[in-house]
């Protein structure tokens, strides 16, 4: 199963490092990353494989939310199917 991690907020140092570090720790494999910075606004999208994840999805979501709170970012982990359903016929 693949999930999409979205990170939205003000750009600052070490965002990718902290998220990818958390992924590695929890056994989440990163498949693809795109990011864009518009002025100070940062949006990163990560496609990840979560079949071999060592923790429950809710625990992984909470761990990333914690990073989000520290750095002032909105971080979400959502099953990729919600995007496929909405945008692909």
């Amino acid at each position, binding site marked *: 199963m693949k999930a*999409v991690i979205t990170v939205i907020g003000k750009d600052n140092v070490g965002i990718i490092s902290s998220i990818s570090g958390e992924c590695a720790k929890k056994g989440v494999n990163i498949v693809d990353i795109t990011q*864009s910075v518009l002025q100070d606004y940062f949006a990163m999208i990560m496609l990840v494989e979560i079949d071999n994840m060592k923790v429950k999805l809710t625990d992984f979501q909470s761990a990333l939310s914690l990073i989000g709170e520290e750095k002032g970012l909105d971080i979400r*982990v959502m099953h990729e199917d919600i995007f*496929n*359903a*909405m*945008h692909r016929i």
Partner: protein
Amino acid sequence: MINTKDILETINMIKQENLDIRTITMGISLFDCISDDQKRLEAKIYDKITKCAEKLVPTAEDLEHTYGIPIINKRVSVTPISLVGSNIGIDGYVRLAGVLEKAANEVGINFIGGFGALVQKGMTKGAHNLIEAIPEALATTTKVCSSVNVASTKAGINMDAVKRMGEIIKDTAILTKDKDSIGCAKLVVFANIPEDNPFMAGAMHGMGESDTVINVGVSGPGVVASAIKREGTCDFSRLADTIKKTAFKITRVGQLIAQEASKRLDTPYGIIDLSLAPTPAVGDSVAHILENMGLEKCGTHGTTAALAMLNDAVKKGGVMASGHVGGLSGAFIPVSEDAGMISAAECGALTIEKLEAMTAVCSVGLDMIAVPGDTPASTISGVIADEIAIGVINNKTTAVRLIPVIGKGVGEGVEFGGLLGYAPIMPLNKYSSEEFIARGGRIPAPIHSLRN
């Protein structure tokens, strides 16, 4: 990989524009609970609901986490209780409402619907007793919702039932007067009631349904309002197209959640209700969609046309996105549950007469409207008769959920709290309908040729 723009659009809909799944409703048939012994009937109903819906709430919560979309309500609808209870007495029906409440609390759902009767043509003893039990049943429970179908296009209007329901609404208001007559917020009078509606207070599990079923109601007025705003001053063809595309996206999420819930709960998927259901939250209003189309205030001239187009475009977009469509499908216009409607009613732009016209072109009917507490029961019956006639003649579902707030009058308001919102008391026509309603009998079913 999925397009970045699309991902950010979805996130924005959820985060900024209040996109949510309004309800996952499990329909449960209670026909196999029928018994001639009240205690046995109660035990079987409790056991069936708690067994079938045991995993409903945890499954819905799990889906919320997995897909990152809020699912606001988890509900259960059951076979109309008058068909299950049959000839038990009035007290027996009040006790059954208590059993439904206990089962709802046990499985942790928000509401349970189906404490109702179908009396469009005539009234069985059971239906009569259930209707008589409604005021006390709603006053002694918080999660039980009641609906009574008093008319259909094929059967006409049961005016005896219309008369009695005016009185029942008044009695319910009096019994719950300590809580601003909130009992009436859980009671709807219908014409052409749908058998698979997941929305409250009118949800019930119809007679042609399977043993259990999953129905999903979507929402998203904020998403449509924002899309219209972004289009600026385009013409109506483009406006309709924008609404269709937006409704498609909203409904696809509902379809995904419905299929996944059906799989995880091992329960057949029934329908998606293509609805724009508002909440009192800022940015979640159907009235604001109409105002974004260019109306200064919802209720002014042009409102009915705007709503007609909105309703039609929502259905066209939603139908393409979903395997099976049903329920009430369309825009909802409950006054107290919509910030834009509340504001329009308070400033006098929106009146009950205009609301009645609006219900001719959208789903449901006169919904969540607070009226003076001293309104005679016959006037309430008159309002019901008018609204029900619109449904019967136009072959559509209409309904009435009026709240006569005991002790309050025009100029005052009532705070129901939560999703039920705030309602300014709206004036009704002062002239009497007493003699008209006292006639009783049935208004015959309409002819559907020679349409004019």
